[in-house]
């Protein structure tokens, strides 16, 4: 008798997802699907809007990484204006981006994933959250909050606002960096760096406690995609989009962003609102590739900052040149966090960072523009077409979570296979499926549920889809009536 197991809510991720696991007649896992259950419609409702409004509109896709959407969008707008932005503007945008990487990675690790890693995958959900962290690991919780605040404060000092700032505009940024803001960020840097260092050390010390998770979390070869400099250094704001195989073979290099469509195809999935991008030359679904921290470190030869590079060398020594288990997303994320802090320091010391010429102006010079950047969760692509007056006629956004869609679904299947046999669901399976999804840090929308647990419900369906049994884990605390603010 075949069954379907559904995990209706995956908690502590950004957005809403559901998981279905299908069992065959023998009670073994035959397949698994990750459903993204919300539709946003940004590509459609922006049609007809002026292109220069796109940064502000698309930033609203997300409250966690609005800066990523802002930057991808302004880069697409720069392309429509066909301008080269002033050097200071480029530095400032990258600085803003680094600050956002630090805050977003801190949120993902400390607030969303650390409860699983430090309190135990099977700990009572009532304490397996940031509140439990504060109680059991107060110093670590403080570190997490401090690191996130560092990133958010740096964003505020540069852009005036922490969330959805209007500072980045097509052609550059709309205000130069003040020397006071520069000093303030510089003075906060040493603390942030020591937290980043401490946290990398911490993840290294606990890796060995999770052999089962490492073995079963998406532990399969895939291709990887990420931005690098021509010399192969890790890049977040601007670079060549590279695809490499699990063995490290260079499969493709996209120099002109407009060419991305030659390499990335998008498949619509019947069971999810999230499309599944794939590497075109290999077809669907063989063209599965991953993006995000793990993929970036697998694509890049080095980070380009000394401490992060030393950590990267150790990482590769321990795990091999291209680790494949999604569990290592956490490790890679923390190395990137350190890199982000180091990179910020370098950028702040750049000679032209305080230049007052920070904006180029132009009208519509190209009818098409593509902006590609690395968001904290992976490659982010904004692609717009406009009419000769600058009204959007067509838009396509490919977000990081989309790239990982196939890999996440396959990872869920792998975890399920590991924990479900003879139709019997082993204890801890649901927690691990959730933890796997969390390792990818998917950003499915703009809401975070860092506190407040939604009860996990497993629906088991018979061959005709008739419900046979429903298992519910009681909610640990009632969901908050109003959503907690999405940012500290």
């Amino acid at each position, binding site marked *: 008798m075949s069954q379907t197991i559904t995990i209706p809510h995956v908690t502590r991720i950004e957005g809403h997802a559901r998981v279905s696991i299908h069992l065959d007649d023998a009670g073994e896992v035959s397949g698994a699907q990750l459903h993204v259950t919300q539709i946003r419609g940004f590509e459609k409702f922006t049609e*007809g809007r002026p292109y220069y*409004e796109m940064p502000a509109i698309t930033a609203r896709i997300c409250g966690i990484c609005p800066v990523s959407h802002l930057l991808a969008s302004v880069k697409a707008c720069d392309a429509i204006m066909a301008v080269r932005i002033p050097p200071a503007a480029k530095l400032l945008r990258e600085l803003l981006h680094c600050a956002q990487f630090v805050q977003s990675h801190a949120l993902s690790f400390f607030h969303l994933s650390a409860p699983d890693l430090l309190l135990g995958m099977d700990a009572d959900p009532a304490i397996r959250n940031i509140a439990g962290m504060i109680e059991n690991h107060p110093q670590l919780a403080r570190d997490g909050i401090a690191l996130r605040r560092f990133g958010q404060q740096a964003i505020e000092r540069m852009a005036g606002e922490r969330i959805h700032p209007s500072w980045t505009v097509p052609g550059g940024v709309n205000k130069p960096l003040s020397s006071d803001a520069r000093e303030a960020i510089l003075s906060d840097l040493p603390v942030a760096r020591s937290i980043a260092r401490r946290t990398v050390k911490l993840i290294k010390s606990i890796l060995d406690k999770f052999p089962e998770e490492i073995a079963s979390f998406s532990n399969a070869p895939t291709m990887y995609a990420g931005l690098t400099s021509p010399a192969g250094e890790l890049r977040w704001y601007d670079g060549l989009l590279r695809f490499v195989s699990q063995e490290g073979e260079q499969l493709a290099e996209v120099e002109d962003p407009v060419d991305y469509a030659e390499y990335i195809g998008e498949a619509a999935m019947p069971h999810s609102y999230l499309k599944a991008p794939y590497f075109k030359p290999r077809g669907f679904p063989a063209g599965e590739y991953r993006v995000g921290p793990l993929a970036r470190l697998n694509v890049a030869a080095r980070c380009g900052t000394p401490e992060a590079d030393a950590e990267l060398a150790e990482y590769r020594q321990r795990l091999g040149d291209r680790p494949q288990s999604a569990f290592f997303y956490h490790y890679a994320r923390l190395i990137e966090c350190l890199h982000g802090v180091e990179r910020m320091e370098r950028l702040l010391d750049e000679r032209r960072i305080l230049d007052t010429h920070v904006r180029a102006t132009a009208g519509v010079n190209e009818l098409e523009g593509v902006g590609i950047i690395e968001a904290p969760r992976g490659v982010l692509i904004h692609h717009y077409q406009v009419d000769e007056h600058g*009204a959007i006629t067509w838009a396509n956004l490919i977000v990081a979570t989309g790239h990982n869609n196939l890999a996440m679904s396959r990872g869920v299947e792998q975890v399920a296979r590991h924990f479900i046999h003879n139709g019997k669901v082993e204890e801890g399976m649901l927690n691990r499926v959730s933890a796997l999804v969390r390792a990818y840090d998917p950003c499915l929308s703009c809401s975070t549920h860092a506190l407040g647990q939604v009860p996990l419900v497993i629906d088991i369906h018979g061959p005709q889809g008739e419900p046979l049994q429903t298992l519910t884990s009681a909610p640990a605390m009632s969901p908050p009536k109003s959503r907690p603010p999405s940012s500290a």
Partner: protein
Amino acid sequence: MPNRISIRIDGELVQAERGQTIFEAAQSNNKFIPGLCQFKGLSTVGACRLCVVEVQGVNRLLPSCTTPAQDGMAVITKSARLNDYRRQSLELLFAEKNHVCAVCVSNNHCELQAYAQRLGVTNVRYAYRYPKLHVDMSHPRFVIDHNRCVLCTRCVRVCNEVEGAYVWGVAGRGIGSRIACEMDRAWGNSASCTNCGKCVQVCPTGALAEKGFAAEEMVKRQDLVERLATIRGTMNPGGPR
């Protein structure tokens, strides 16, 4: 007949000039009355209904921008009842079109937004209509976004009365009313537009804006048009008294 008259505003006896409206009399005595369609130097139309006041002896509310002040008149400019009606007018404006402050060029520099904050509009009790409206980007320098238009007709009046170009008018009726360029042409094809931009500067919201401004960046220079309108408006028929 003496040129000065005495009226009572919120209980206080004040002096006004004969021929002034209640709105002008209140303004010259530093009494605040909200108003979206009124603009110094342009004729008045009483379109927005934000400036309604209570006049003693009259059992309905009167728009202060079109009601002449009369000797001995007693006017109330603030009361719970007035506040309620003004709020309703604002809420209806918000429900009528697609006002999304966060992504608007005029965010933080918008009269509609400022009044909503000042009058305590924390929610809109009416269902939003979400109409599908056009953004005309055909003009080389300016853009009109009908989603943000409150139909105050300041643009129509400043173009007629100050610039004398008669580009703008109102097309349609009732809920379907909208600002139209000439005989409903694309703005970029206008035969009479002088590209002066006065309509953009007097627009209280982000409906009329200069091209290329990102969210929050459009700050209108109303003082310039006000001065110009006061000087030139008197020479144009249909201008203020």
